[in-house]
């Protein structure tokens, strides 16, 4: 027996890694889907769009758009057993660009996402000090008072904008590389590398911690937050439904985009993860599990977030009242603590009646609990400004700060795995890795390249560039790619063939609900969402909020318009990933490769090509 062929066959089956068990696979997908957006975007949307009423468009979008697309991606990854580029190439060579676009997108998103993790690490390192560095203003150089920038704004804002980002007033001013951010970025990429070093072999072990730890911390925060004063006010404010708001089409648009980005669709990472599955695996159940857990996590996270924000609003309100009380007490020489927060209103009317001019001259602040509650934020503003301010007021601030930032880091880390797998798996499948290069070196190379490119976000203007990447890369291109994905499967691959594959994998054909969604509802919804999103974006001239101490209304952020070359970069970022789809399609059309040459998984049982009919036989 020829020994060489047996070693080749064993190499083929050895080559594709696989998950150690189902739990690893599910945890990795859940970790990828559950990310920072579940914690800092969903609660904000819930609050802004009428509390409990927002759940209706959100759940509708989940059922009709999120779950079908999720099921589709997991199923094609599992049946075609390749990364995004290989999968789309097998479906149709004209669609190879979809895979390339996914890979470029995963790469670009991975760049800025890990920078956010670098910031989280910076705050984590600083949470071990007493007092927390963002709780007080630092003293200026000649020790006469506090730093002016800090006095005008708040210590929390100062720590974020000056001490962490050292932000420039304008995106055109680059500033220099901030060395502290560079080393935090290096540590973030090192931690990512150590988990990613052998692909899913190490990722599968890491997710046992990174995917489950956030839930533990959220539970701890939930218990703590519900015992804080003002927590119930925050929760009531969050969940009180405002049904009127459902008439506003922006609510539906934001719900659809939120569910889409929250599930991390169209990155290619989910396709990569499911390609390492065994052939016979119930991907329908996996999709339902991942989708539902993702939404449930969003809801679960919003409860402690809003309890804590309610607590913060209440303490701000009390501070405001107390400063007014102090002013009144000092001006009218009333005995200490005679005016309290309870009888403040009564005293105020009494004093106003007796001496209105004096009261007026005090310039008392307007203390309105509702306006403090309205000071919501999403994104980095929520984590690094609002939440850190709340943590200062909680007893034992260091513990809560450390827990919070570790939670954010593990949420982001598990999402980074998906982004990087969306880059690594297609490259491995295309055999772009030289034979002599071990996998560890290749993943290290990817991490180093990403680190070097992400250094632009550590400059003084880095935060502005990150916002650009966040808004322009992580939005429209994803919607376009998802649309091409669903069209590719329904039109090019064929619903029948797809249903056959699913029957082979799960044991049953997809029921009428899935077929109706894939063929009708989901593509229509995607197109509507895409068009509406573009229309809304185009209407307003893009501006960005700049932190400018020289601004007359400082500390309010100054809205500056993007200059032309910056706007050109924004447009490029949106269009270049998407352009690869038509470019590859045209290229393939030119070369005449319209049909897929290889059929990877359909051995014909009637012709095993062992016996080829001899055409030279002379008929006798």
């Amino acid at each position, binding site marked *: 027996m020829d020994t060489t062929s047996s070693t080749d066959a064993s190499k083929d089956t050895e080559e594709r890694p696989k998950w150690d068990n189902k739990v690893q696979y599910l945890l990795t997908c859940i970790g990828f889907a559950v990310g920072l957006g579940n914690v800092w975007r969903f609660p904000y949307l819930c609050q802004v769009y009428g509390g409990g009423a927002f759940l209706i468009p959100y759940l509708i979008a989940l059922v009709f758009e999120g779950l079908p697309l999720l099921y589709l991606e997991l199923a094609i990854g599992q049946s075609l057993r390749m990364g995004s580029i290989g999968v789309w190439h097998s479906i149709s060579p004209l669609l190879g660009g979809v895979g390339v676009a996914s890979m470029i997108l995963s790469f670009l998103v991975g760049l800025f996402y890990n920078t956010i993790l670098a910031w989280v690490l910076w705050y984590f*390192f600083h949470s071990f*000090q007493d007092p927390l560095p963002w709780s007080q203003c630092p003293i200026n150089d000649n020790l006469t008072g506090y730093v002016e920038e800090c006095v005008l704004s708040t210590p929390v804002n100062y720590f974020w904008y000056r001490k962490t980002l050292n932000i420039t007033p304008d995106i055109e001013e680059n500033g220099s590389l901030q060395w502290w951010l560079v080393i935090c970025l290096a540590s973030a990429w*090192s931690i990512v590398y*150590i988990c990613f*070093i*052998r692909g899913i072999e190490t990722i599968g072990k890491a997710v046992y911690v990174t995917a489950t730890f956030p839930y533990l911390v959220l539970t701890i925060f939930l218990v703590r937050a519900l015992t804080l004063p003002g927590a119930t006010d925050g929760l009531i404010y969050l969940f009180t439904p405002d049904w009127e708001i459902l008439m506003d089409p922006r609510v539906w648009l934001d719900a659809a985009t939120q569910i889409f980005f929250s599930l991390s669709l169209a990155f290619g990472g989910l396709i990569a993860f499911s390609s390492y599955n065994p052939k016979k695996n119930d991907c329908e159940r996996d999709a339902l599990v991942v989708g539902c857990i993702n939404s449930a996590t969003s809801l679960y996270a919003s409860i402690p977030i809003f309890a804590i924000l309610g607590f913060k609003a209440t303490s701000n309100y009390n501070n405001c009242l107390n400063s007014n009380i102090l002013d009144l007490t000092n001006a009218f020489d*009333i005995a*200490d603590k005679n005016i309290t927060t309870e009888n403040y209103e009564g005293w105020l009317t009494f004093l106003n009646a007796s001496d209105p001019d004096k009261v007026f001259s005090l310039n008392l602040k307007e203390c309105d609990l509702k306006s403090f509650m309205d000071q919501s934020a999403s994104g980095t503003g929520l984590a690094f400004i609002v939440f850190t301010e709340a943590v200062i007021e909680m007893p034992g601030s260091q513990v809560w700060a450390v827990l919070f930032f570790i939670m954010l880091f593990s949420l982001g880390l598990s999402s980074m795995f998906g982004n990087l797998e969306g880059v690594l798996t297609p490259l491995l499948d295309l055999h772009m890795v030289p034979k002599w290069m071990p996998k560890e070196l290749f993943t290290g190379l990817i991490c180093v390249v990403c680190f070097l490119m992400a250094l632009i976000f550590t400059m003084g203007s880095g935060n502005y560039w990150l916002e650009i990447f966040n808004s322009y890369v992580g939005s429209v291109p994803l919607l376009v790619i998802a649309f091409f994905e669903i069209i590719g499967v329904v039109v090019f691959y064929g619903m029948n063939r797809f249903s056959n594959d699913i029957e082979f994998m799960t044991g049953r054909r997809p029921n009428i609900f899935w077929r109706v969604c894939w063929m009708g509802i989901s593509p229509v919804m995607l197109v509507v969402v895409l068009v509406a999103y573009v229309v809304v974006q185009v209407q307003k001239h893009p501006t960005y909020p700049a932190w400018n101490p020289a601004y007359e209304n400082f500390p309010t952020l100054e809205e500056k318009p993007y200059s032309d070359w910056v706007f050109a970069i924004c447009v490029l970022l949106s269009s270049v990933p998407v352009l690869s789809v038509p470019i590859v399609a045209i290229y393939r059309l030119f070369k005449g490769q319209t049909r897929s040459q290889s059929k990877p998984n359909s051995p014909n049982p009637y012709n095993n090509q062992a016996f080829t009919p001899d055409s030279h036989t002379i008929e006798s």
Partner: protein
Amino acid sequence: MLTRILPLIFLPSVLTQDLCKDGKDGNKVRISLKTGLGEEAYEWNESEMFLFKSSLAFAMRKHTGNDKLDISNILVCNETRRVSFIFVVTSPTNTSQLIPKAEVQAAVRNSKHRINSAFLLSDMTLEFVGIPPTLATPIKYDTPPWLIVFGVVMGAVAVGILALLMSTVTKGRRAKAKAVDSAEEGEGREGRVKENGTSLTHLELKDGVYNEAFSSDDERLTQL
């Protein structure tokens, strides 16, 4: 006679009240006992005022170095329920002359901590209007604590990466050694298959056994 003496007796106190109420060199003080001490707040009475006057006299003595300054040089007026009042300091040599405000403020600033401690209060709760609270000196670290945490984390990560890379290298070496073994085994097996399997082959004595039947020792033969 009495009517003439009585005003003379009351004149100093009237004069002192005028000195205090003139207000130009007076310092206002605000004390917030309930805010500062909560449940343990003591009541503000004459004895507490006496303590205040004596601590102020102490501060003035310490600053000016003038031992003649006495508690009678501290004049207080405009007491309110707040508790707040105005005080002035008269010169020990001439009781109708006031010590300038700036000097009083400097004296208070120097001994602020002692005065606060006498009343168990802080800069916020024992307020001298016009004297800003002293700022706490910033703590100077030799190594900022965040660098220490960073060092610990990076050290752990570096060790982890090295461990993983070492395990890859040893795995590779072990796999290579196994591959060489199995290749050798494969060759040996093939070699055995090619032979027809005599019993001697597995003894690996390919050279045969020297059976010493034929000896090359020709000593017993006669030599020619």
